[in-house]
């Protein structure tokens, strides 16, 4: 037994109670006035006749057979084949060159500006070191 369990047991025993004679008599008197109630018996579920189970089994089988027959007798409908179409005609023509020019233009300008900045910096460095 660990420390806490021992402590709890000891402390519970320190709670002093006494069932007084008066309480004892009171309980005895009250018990005499009570009559045990009849045990509550669970009501069994109603039994169904065997015929009920046969009838429901047959109904189930009949329904299953009906579904199988209906499914198998139905004609499979072929989906209508779509008319041949030219995919090329349907695809829109993209003006690739225009797009390229539009995208390449600003980049080229940026590249020229960067190259010019590098040349300017190079010149400045050369003049600073006296070359």
């Amino acid at each position, binding site marked *: 037994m660990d420390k806490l369990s021992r402590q*709890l047991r*000891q*402390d519970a025993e320190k*709670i002093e109670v006494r*069932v007084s004679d008066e309480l004892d008599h009171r309980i005895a008197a009250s018990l005499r006035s009570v*009559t045990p109630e009849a045990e509550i018996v669970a009501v069994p579920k109603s039994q169904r006749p065997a015929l009920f189970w046969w009838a429901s089994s047959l109904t189930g089988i009949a329904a299953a057979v009906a579904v199988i027959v209906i499914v198998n007798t139905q004609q499979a409908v072929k989906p209508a084949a779509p008319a041949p179409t030219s995919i090329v005609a349907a695809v829109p023509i993209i003006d690739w060159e225009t797009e390229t020019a539009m995208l390449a233009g600003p980049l080229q300008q940026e590249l020229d500006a960067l190259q010019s900045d590098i040349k300017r910096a190079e010149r400045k460095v050369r003049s600073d070191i006296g070359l």
Partner: protein
Amino acid sequence: MRTERQRVSAAQAGSADAFGELVRDYRHGLLRFLLTRCASYADAEDALQDTMMSAFRYIRSYDERWRFSTWLYRIAIRNAAKLRVPEVVELGDLRDEESDPLLQCIADSDAENLWINARRLLNDEVFAAMWLRYAEDMSVKDISRALDRSPSWTKVNLLRGRKALDVELNNAVNQGKAYG
């Protein structure tokens, strides 16, 4: 000298005397338990009387697979819950010490009693589980039956209760308080 089984049978047949013999050994423990749950000593006595009456009234529905004490405690817990005054529970340790039946029944001693702190720290159900385990030495299975809870709930909450009281016990030791 009749066995418990014979007393139960006689009580089920309607003998109040046999029932009185049957519960004689449990009265003291039940009253002590009820005292920790009720607002006054008189309430605890009333709860004990109600428990005995309910137990006798429904003795025929007692299932012998249960321990008789487990069944009695289950009824006692329900009766105590009916008598408990909610405001007193909410106030916890703010209640008047002179009217606290538990404090009145603890022997004159400077030492602390861990059950007073258990009542402050734990909720009613966890307190009951702790009491049944450590004061009444009930098994987890019986406690879960008495509280109408699952064994896993009981195990988890016993562990939580222990943890809370362990902290309290260690704090008390650090502060130089003495338990027991």
